[in-house]
């Protein structure tokens, strides 16, 4: 269980998060939503260890986590996949994280092949990632993080560039990863894309949590700044 306690964060000028408290349970499929500037991306980046915990704390099974602990526990998929694509082929890109974790070559090949198949990217494995369409690049970015099997997979608007087919494919993959025990947290403005999968919604308003409940409760709530 990942527990966020009184988390606050301040950029140079703006306060992005103000005493946020929330829990991500094991196996959760959680949507994080709210208007532009409400703090969604900042929260995800702190959980992923990309931004420091300035105030408050984050605990895993009761133990306070350092920024480095968070990096090992959570995988983060950027809103813009190009921000995290490094390899000169899709295969290299997916293998990058595993290689850095010291996974043996034969095992690495097996895992890369498996995840490329799951994401239906096998045919493109020797292509340059920079030649992919936005939708394909978004799938590659998720695959490259999912292959590391993080306990918590955090995704910032993962289907925003995808067509219906792409959304369906990504949702199927996220469903499978969730069933394998990975907790999924998605920042999105389009709740309706995940209604079949998500169990909980957290809504942020100006850096504070003002809703935490089931997706059905959220849909019937008066909150109307996102597309339900």
């Amino acid at each position: 269980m990942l527990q966020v306690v009184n988390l606050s964060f301040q950029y140079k000028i703006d306060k992005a998060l103000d005493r946020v408290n929330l829990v991500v349970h094991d196996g959760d499929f959680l949507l994080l939503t709210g208007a532009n500037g409400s703090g969604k991306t900042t929260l995800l980046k702190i959980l992923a260890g990309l931004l420091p915990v300035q105030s408050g704390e984050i605990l895993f099974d009761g133990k306070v986590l350092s920024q480095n602990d968070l990096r090992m526990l959570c995988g983060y998929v950027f809103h813009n996949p190009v921000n995290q694509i490094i390899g000169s082929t899709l295969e290299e890109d997916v293998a990058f994280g595993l290689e850095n974790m010291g996974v043996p070559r034969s095992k690495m090949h097996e895992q890369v092949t498996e995840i490329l198949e799951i994401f239906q990217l096998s045919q493109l494995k020797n292509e340059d990632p920079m030649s992919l369409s936005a939708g394909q690049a978004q799938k590659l970015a998720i695959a490259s993080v999912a292959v590391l099997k993080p306990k918590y997979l955090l995704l910032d608007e993962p289907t925003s560039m995808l067509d219906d087919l792409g959304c369906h494919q990504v949702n199927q993959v996220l469903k499978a990863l969730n069933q394998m025990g990975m907790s999924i947290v998605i920042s999105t403005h389009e709740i309706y894309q995940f209604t079949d999968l998500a169990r909980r919604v957290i809504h942020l308003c100006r850096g504070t949590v003002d809703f935490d409940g089931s997706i059905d409760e959220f849909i019937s709530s008066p909150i109307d700044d996102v597309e339900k």
Partner: protein
Amino acid sequence: MMLKNEVKKMGIFQLELQDVSFSYDNSKLILHEINMVIESQDFVLITGQNGAGKSTLLRLISGILKPKSGTVKINGRSIYRQKDYFKMIGFVMQYAEDSFCCDTVFDEIAFASRNFGLDRIEERVQNAARIMGIDQEAFSKSPYDLSNGEMRRLAIASVIAHDPFLLVLDEPFVGLDKAGKQFLRKVLENWKKNNRATVVVSHQLKYLTDLANKIFNLQSGRLSKVDSV
């Protein structure tokens, strides 16, 4: 006379793609013999699946890429011989932050206008910010400290400031919340009323179909005109 002044004076803007084909690596064609005309007040919506070639087509329209064969002409002349073609185009990329290059929101909005040697920079920035709903308090912020939706609005303000004739928008609704999408829709409506042209690639069709007077579908690099989506 410079092209932009000529278009302004005559009030005629016509961009024509004739048999445009494109390949990134000379082996596989991404676009096949595209023909398309964009005129003043046109609102062109391009749909298609991921990987169909939509973003490549927008880069060709914007003059960032050159076709392997075929021509792109503005008012009958090749865009590649018109030094001020870029002054007439406002191209917003898929990912807003890809276009940022300044330390502050103000400088980002002013960037293109300054580079084009335009006058009234302060006024242009204020006006573009007002149109896109960017508060003056944000002017001193780093563009990278903004939320995804705020970045999107900044990217559009940055190209509106130099007053182009054609807005080219690649997935402009991505990252915007519900209010932001409704706001942008209103901006695009007003843009059209001001006799300006727009080309949009988007999956968020419900905000655009009734605005569009030309709808194209791109499938495996081949463009076809459709009545509705």
